[in-house]
């Protein structure tokens, strides 16, 4: 019965995002390495777009790399965007275990939504991804988790913006 219920749940129609209003948001991402950021950026942006968020990646520079805390990065982001709605995603992946022939990673993503003169919304989600090969690294783990991170971030942006998730 439980299996049938789960199957029916999977087969249920997806919530239609096309009715939601578009929100423009500036984005920046942080991970263990620039290559890891590159690995997760495209799939996250695809999900944001599918959920009607118009994401504009903010170009970073050497000063960005030297910022050590989420607060500093958020402040930098708001400064660069003149206080417009901004989304900062900080993610890292850590190998956890070899599990029944696969390789499990734990991905932690902290999502910060900020806008000038408004309190910042910051939440962290932890998820596990299971990769099939031993040589795969944090880039693969973040790329695998990216759609879920994107969906989570989109929900927070809408929540911050005062619209249904």
């Amino acid at each position, binding site marked *: 019965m439980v*299996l*049938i219920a*789960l*199957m029916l*749940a*999977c*087969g249920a129609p*997806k919530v239609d995002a096309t009715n939601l209003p578009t929100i423009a948001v500036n984005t920046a991402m942080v991970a263990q390495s620039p290559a890891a950021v590159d690995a997760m950026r495209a799939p996250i942006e695809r999900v944001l777009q599918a959920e009607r968020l118009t994401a504009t990646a903010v170009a970073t520079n050497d000063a960005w790399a030297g910022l050590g805390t989420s607060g500093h990065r958020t402040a930098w982001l708001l400064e660069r965007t003149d206080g417009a709605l901004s989304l900062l995603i900080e993610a*890292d992946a*850590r190998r*956890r*275990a*070899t*599990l*029944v*022939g*696969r*390789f*499990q990673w*734990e*991905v*932690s993503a902290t999502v910060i939504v900020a806008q000038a003169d408004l309190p910042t919304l910051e939440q*962290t*989600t*932890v998820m*596990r991804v*299971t990769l*099939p*090969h*031993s*040589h795969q690294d944090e880039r693969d783990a973040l790329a695998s988790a990216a*759609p*879920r991170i994107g969906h989570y971030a989109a929900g927070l942006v809408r929540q911050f913006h005062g619209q249904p998730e």
Partner: protein
Amino acid sequence: MIGRLAVTLMGLGLLSGPASANARVGGYARVMARPDLQGGTGRLGYWNLYGRLLNEGPYAALDFDYDVLEPDGANPWTTIHMRVEGGSVQGADSGNGSLDRFRMSQLYIEAGNVIIPNVSWQVGTLYRTMGDMGLYDMRPATIFFNTVGLSGTLRTGPLELTVGGGDSGNSLRMNRYHPVWTGGGAARLGLGRHVQIGIGGEWSMERGTEGHRYAAYDTPGVDYEDWLRGETIEAYRSEFPIDADRFPDPIAADAQSGHAFAYLGFGGLGPLKWNSTTVRFDRLHPEGPTREDYNGESEDIHVTSLTDERTVLFVGNEAHIAVVPERVDVAWGALYGKHVDGDNTVAPSDHNRWYASTVLRLQVATTRTLAVLLESSIAQEVSTLGNRYREHEDSIFANTNGIPDTRGLEYGETDTRTTWQGKGGIVFNPMGPGIFSRPSLRLLYGAQHSNENNAFSNQFVTTLDQYNEFGTVEQHWHHVLALEAEAWF
């Protein structure tokens, strides 16, 4: 005890918060309902040679680790890791979830950046693998499956190097523990993003210990065929009938075993996501003694030198191909195995055979969460020491060269089993498309054809005795419907 532990681990799982928290719980679950209307026990065929799908039973693993000292750059860190796993679920198999089918398969403490940077030391269970042939659920590129001890792993750039050693006595000898020293290692090197090579192996040595009842011994003068028939004492007494002639005392022996493997992986090339090839050669550990009773006399027959020439050659390949990304995936696997027992020249067994198999799986995503799965496999298993399989309900049993012989060591009328399986159904992937996407909820139908009669685990009566009240059944096709779920979490 294990139950309490499992409950504790689940509690920790519910409490585990962000990655910065110290405790984490993951796991694996596979559960199914497979009513078998043909008298089987719910598995399509005998084993994974025909592909793991529909040939495996339920399984669950709960995997826990706790950072005593979290990894932090180049500073020392240490983590405790443990796992409970087993193959039974209430209602899904005859074990009904009994905890005696579960075991603590892993417990180790890992410490990194201690003494040597980038090296992690592991004390406890040492099992390590380079991956899985997922279609078969086989892991040939593995070391230290049986070993508890110490290992050190260096991770630097594209290189991962593990060296270790310890004791495999409890795993190999179980309740007849005697130390089996094991040493070995593995190295994996990445050549860019597209190629990985690896080698590994281990060697185990069980030294004879004079006076230790569970050490490796040989009983002198044992004939292989007499031992196989359980007639060693009888054969001895036919020559030395007087009780005063004492049955020969065992002589201490050394037992050795080990394996070596080589691994090549490549991928990220067009639609080829990854291809893994593994070659492995095993020399199996000799058996312990068997108990014989004859005419009121009981003896342990020690057979180290009668079971020390068993080898296995294994070659396996698996490829994953994204024919149309996020829409059509293909996984193809093939393997070959050859088992040779240099001591046994008289009777068919698992140690004198070869087999070959290929499996092809196609998964087509019709929506983001719904897919159609099709899989087919063909396999052949050949006994290299005579007949082993019965093709019909009235086939002969014990025979010699196909002629019925109650003293014959062969079984059935053929040395070859050929098996075809086809499987298909609907797969629900809540996490999105992909052949590796899990959780996976499947509604499957599978069919098997084998030249062997009733080639699936069953409880059929096979005797041709006239007083057989249940009768016999002949069927070469086997059909299974399955509703199942699988997840890593």
